[in-house]
């Protein structure tokens, strides 16, 4: 096995064999994962998946031998998608958000975030939350996730445990995927 940065990595043949061994449920998962990561990148989900596979085969994104290939493709798609959103942000002309006379030298990050982008973010957030107006518990769960709560905090917030918690997460995921595909939930 080749070694890269001190880690044993999968060979190209190994990667190909692992992907060819994917089952029908695995491909269903990959389709859903690609769609969730491609959302609002400007890329089609198949392009995103193809790019992740291409980078893995070409060795620009190596898969360590101890990492599941599906997990590796998920991380790679996530990374590419984040990069694309960042590129889109950098290509957007930014109006300064700081008020004249206000000392903004101590807080530079907000100057990177235009008022227009903030409106887009807030509108997107509102759109996501509105999808759960009929289900206050799901809405609380989404709000908690967006606020960065961990699993225990989310369970405490919603009062959900075990299967009920997982079922609610699944409902949220399926509705959001429909949103990403432009379909009514």
């Amino acid at each position, binding site marked *: 096995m080749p070694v890269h940065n001190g880690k044993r990595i999968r060979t190209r043949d190994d990667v190909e064999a692992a992907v060819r061994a994917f089952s029908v*449920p695995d*491909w269903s998962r990959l389709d859903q*994962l690609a769609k*969730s990561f491609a959302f609002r990148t400007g890329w089609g989900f198949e392009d995103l998946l193809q790019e992740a596979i291409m980078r893995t085969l070409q060795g620009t994104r190596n898969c360590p031998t101890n990492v599941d290939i599906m997990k590796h493709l998920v991380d790679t798609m996530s990374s590419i998608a984040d990069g694309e959103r960042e590129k889109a942000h950098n290509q957007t002309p930014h109006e300064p958000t700081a008020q004249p006379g206000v000392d903004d030298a101590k807080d530079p990050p907000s100057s990177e*975030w235009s008022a227009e982008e903030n409106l887009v973010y807030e509108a997107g957030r509102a759109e996501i939350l509105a999808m759960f107006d009929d289900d206050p518990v799901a809405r609380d769960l989404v709000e908690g996730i967006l606020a960065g709560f961990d699993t225990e905090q989310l369970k405490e917030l919603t009062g959900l445990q075990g299967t009920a918690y997982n079922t609610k*997460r699944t409902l949220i*995921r399926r509705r959001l995927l429909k949103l990403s595909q432009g379909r009514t939930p």
Partner: protein
Amino acid sequence: MTERKEARKSLQGLRQVMADNILETSDEEILAQFAEDVGSPDVNAAGMRALFEKTVLLANKGRLYAARAGVAAINISSAGSPIPIAEARARLRQVLDAHALDKSFTLAARKESELSDADVLDMLEAMRELGLLD
């Protein structure tokens, strides 16, 4: 006003929760949900497998181009480019624009500005061989 980093992190968190849920869902459940929300899982699997095999072929071609580019780079350094590189890039851009909707061109291949001079010349040569160029 929401900070940019905070907004980015919150949406990443939501995507991660979705990804974890997809990975944790049992085979039976994911198949049933897929059939209800999207369509036939078997048809999807066949399409995805075909996409994968196409990507393997493209990666193989890429390896071939890279090997050729190595030779081309040596030739360029010893004999100079057969056409000015700016002209070569313009011609490549023309071909890529003409095939902008062609899925057989990977996204990487569609970005002429990110290619080295040797890659540009090699890609033009490969396109000539494929009959995409005179």
